[in-house]
């Protein structure tokens, strides 16, 4: 069984490589040296991170954008998934997934060109609202994907039974299908939040001067060269998302 041992070792290596980048960042965020040589434990980079007002503003923007687009895309996407489940159309659901396979850079440029064209007739500027609109537009496909997967295992007969027993269509949805969909909707919202909070390529295209997000600031910092503050922020983001996943897991079990 030499062969399978070799494959096992290889798999372990792939698993390790998936996690090494993050572990390295976490480790070096506590390094007192600016370079990737260990010199000693220090919280200097975390102090600099909390002192940076531009960073705080970008983090706040990211949070507002991610929350707004999560709420909107989760509601709209769930309604759409329910509608498609009731009355499926292969052509329609296929085209809604279009944004999943469109290269990000294409989506970004096309939205920028579109917004600029709209602004000729309608005096507005690029800003938080354009970023939120763009995020909602590309998050809906993710929400659909997750909620539709949950609906695929649902039993239409249950709603019909509720209708037979005197519920109206809204009650049947609210009392029968919605509770069953809850875990799916929670997962979809979590996914929508992550894709919105993480997005750089599309956001950088449609953002205005007042709507710089955290990934944009991170990107600018990293382009300027090795910067342990980036590692510190990365560690905080990673821990934040870890906590979010744990909380949502607990909530689904409860």
């Amino acid at each position: 069984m030499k062969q399978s041992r070799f494959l096992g070792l290889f798999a372990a290596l792939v698993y390790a490589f998936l996690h090494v980048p993050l572990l390295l960042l976490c480790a070096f965020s506590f390094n007192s040296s600016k370079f990737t040589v260990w010199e000693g434990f220090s919280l200097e980079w975390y102090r600099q991170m909390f002192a940076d007002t531009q960073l705080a503003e970008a983090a706040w923007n990211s949070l507002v954008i991610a929350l707004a687009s999560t709420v909107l895309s989760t509601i709209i996407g769930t309604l759409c998934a329910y509608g498609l489940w009731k009355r499926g159309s292969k052509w329609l659901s296929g085209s809604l997934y279009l944004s999943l396979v469109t290269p990000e850079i294409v989506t970004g440029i096309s939205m920028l060109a579109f917004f600029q064209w709209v602004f000729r007739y309608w005096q507005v500027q690029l800003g938080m609202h354009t970023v939120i609109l763009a995020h909602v537009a590309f998050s809906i496909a993710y929400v659909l994907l997750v909620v539709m997967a949950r609906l695929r295992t649902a039993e239409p007969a249950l709603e019909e039974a509720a209708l037979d027993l005197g519920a109206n269509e809204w009650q049947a949805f609210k009392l029968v299908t919605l509770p069953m969909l809850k875990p799916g909707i929670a997962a979809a919202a979590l996914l929508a939040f992550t894709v919105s909070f993480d997005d750089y390529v599309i956001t950088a295209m449609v953002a205005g001067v007042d709507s710089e997000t955290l990934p944009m600031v991170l990107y600018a910092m990293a382009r300027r060269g090795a910067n342990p503050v980036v590692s510190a922020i990365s560690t905080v983001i990673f821990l934040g998302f870890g906590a979010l996943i744990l909380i949502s897991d607990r909530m689904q079990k409860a």
Partner: protein
Amino acid sequence: MTRPWRLLLLPSLFLWLAGVLTPLVFVLRMSLYAHGEGSGEKHFDALFYQPGTWSLQSILTVLTEPFYQRLFAFTALLALTVTTLTLLCGYLLGYLVYRATPKRKILLILLIALPKFTNILVFVFGVKMIFGANGFFPVVAGEVLLLVPYAALTIAATLETVPYHLVEAARGLGASPAAAFWRVTFPLSMPGVAAAAILTILWSASGFLGPYLLGEPVHYTVAVEVERQVRQNLNWTLAAALNVVLIALLAGGAYTMSLLRRRLA
């Protein structure tokens, strides 16, 4: 009575039209404008293209200039290398998930998905730290690590539908473990491999952050050039033409693959 659930689709359809389809049509139109002057006191958008004109100039530039031909060739080479490696690693991880006990299955899936819950940028910085210097190998490694989780989970989901007693039956009839795998498990998992391949090719061919942050300028992809044209050269028509050619190639590639898949199935 009108069916109320048709109304439920309206918000999505509206957003899809405004946020996905219209912009795509815009890119197509943009690639057919004469390019702008980049200066002067014009309307903001007239700096980047000349409204009302029709011109094949940008598309022809992309199709004929050696620089762009080399760019597309390199992007294709990168995408194929990344896809091959991603599918190999993804299949292995997916197979381990398939064969694991239910308890370990969840752990293995979590370990695959965990890196996806961080910022892509953050992940790429981490990869940069491992390698130190930029180059072709770091770009490939970065893209593979970014895409392996998707490939592994897609393949695992398809493998889950393959009943293991089929393999046991093949073994019972005298097949070696390798023969049982290649003649039973592998053919049945092909739909998952094909789906993963399409996703990986699409994403690696349009990769931006990986090549930009981990590569030297010779390792830049079409997406990086698009960004440079928009941000630095303010040549929107050329950027749009690059996009149109990229989409056409990707759509052609995806279509060919789906035809192949139908033939294999």
